[in-house]
């Protein structure tokens, strides 16, 4: 059976429906030339995705942080150690009327964003609710997210915990990475340990849990592909995860 290139491409991308997909799977086992064609599609995909993945690591220019914060870039260039609060976790319903942020909370957040842009971090108190901050162009976990990444184990966490830890693994450069989901913000991401901090190269909208059903721990595809590009070997099991935590996430201590 001869398959055209578009069909094989869709098969390699996992986009082909049944029964065609199963038919090609078995044809591949009998036909090494067909297997090579599919493999070439997969290899090209991995090469292109891998090449651009380094962009996620690069420092984010101040002008983009300012633009995303809705302010004009007016801060002096090259000012060191500026931190900006970027992702806040909504307060518990008890604190915010009606479960959603009111104008007051948003105004306070807007003020803190502007302050964060203009003042260096030492002069303002860090908000206890900030989950992600930007520091020297990198997104860094803070607050409840940083605490969960430091101490929470996927094996013992409760479904009601605001941060859900997914996979924990060693990256190819030896450091530890952990995937996470922020339940109320419906955001999933990956954090990797570097210089005593959890850096966040990627976030994505996570599937919203329907009708209070506990959502599966599978990260969104974009987060998964970053995991696949970094992971060395398999994800850690419960014992490996606990050992890594005991070692303070220091790659040299385990």
């Amino acid at each position, binding site marked *: 059976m001869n398959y055209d*290139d*578009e069909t094989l*491409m*869709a098969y390699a*991308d996992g*986009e082909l429906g049944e029964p065609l997909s199963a038919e090609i799977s078995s044809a591949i086992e009998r036909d090494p030339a067909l297997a090579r064609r599919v493999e*070439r*599609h997969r290899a*090209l*995909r991995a*090469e*292109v*995705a*891998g*090449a*651009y*993945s*380094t*962009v*996620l690591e*690069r420092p*984010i*220019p101040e*002008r*983009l*942080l300012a*633009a*995303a*914060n*809705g302010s004009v870039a007016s801060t002096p260039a090259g000012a060191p150690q500026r931190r*900006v609060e*970027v*992702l*806040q976790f909504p307060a518990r319903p008890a604190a915010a009327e009606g479960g959603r*942020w009111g*104008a007051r909370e*948003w105004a306070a*957040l*807007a003020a803190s*964003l502007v302050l964060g842009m203009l003042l260096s971090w030492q002069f303002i108190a860090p908000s206890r609710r900030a989950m*992600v901050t*930007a520091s020297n162009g990198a*997104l860094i976990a803070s607050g409840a997210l940083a605490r969960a990444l430091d101490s929470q184990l996927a094996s013992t966490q409760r479904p009601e915990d605001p941060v859900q830890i997914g996979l924990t693994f060693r990256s190819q450069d030896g450091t530890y990475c952990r995937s996470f989901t922020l339940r109320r*913000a419906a*955001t999933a*991401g990956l954090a990797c340990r570097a210089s005593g901090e959890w850096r*966040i*190269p*990627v*976030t*994505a*909208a996570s599937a*919203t849990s329907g009708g209070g059903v506990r959502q599966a721990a599978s990260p969104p*595809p*974009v987060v*998964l*592909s970053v995991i696949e590009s970094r992971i060395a070997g398999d994800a850690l099991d419960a014992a490996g995860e606990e050992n890594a935590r005991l070692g303070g996430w220091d790659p040299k201590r385990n």
Partner: protein
Amino acid sequence: MTADTEEISVRLVALLPRLRRFARSLSRNQHDADDLVQLAVERALRGAGQFRAGANLAAWMFGIMKNAWIDTCRARGRRAEVALPEDSGEHPAVSPGDTDASLWSVSEAMSKLPEDQRLAVALVLVEGMSYKEAAAVLEIPIGTLTSRLARGRSALAAALSAEAPA
């Protein structure tokens, strides 16, 4: 800023690394890519009222970036017709930060693709979107997406293997 704009702003910052990656896969250097991100972020915040709560913010942003990119290319094309009768290397392929050889060679190969194929490749191969999601961002039928993706891929494979014979 309204509350909704503020909420989008907060989520946009967390998306910046991905927006930069997508922009970098469209343009040949990081500076042009960051110009595109900035333009798109500004447009998004101005049009934040059009974002439906619960929709996929990344997909919405990629759509805005696609339009902004096409606008930029058209403007640049007009300028090029006037000032640059032939490719004079006005836009250097290598920006100072591009020490990564694989990024350099893939960027070169991507820059040779027609815009419509490059957008399809960027959304599916770089950003990991499904065919359905990518077709929705580009506002084209899924069959059109599939054929652009297939042509883009075979051109990329040819360019990459010509450069580094195995």
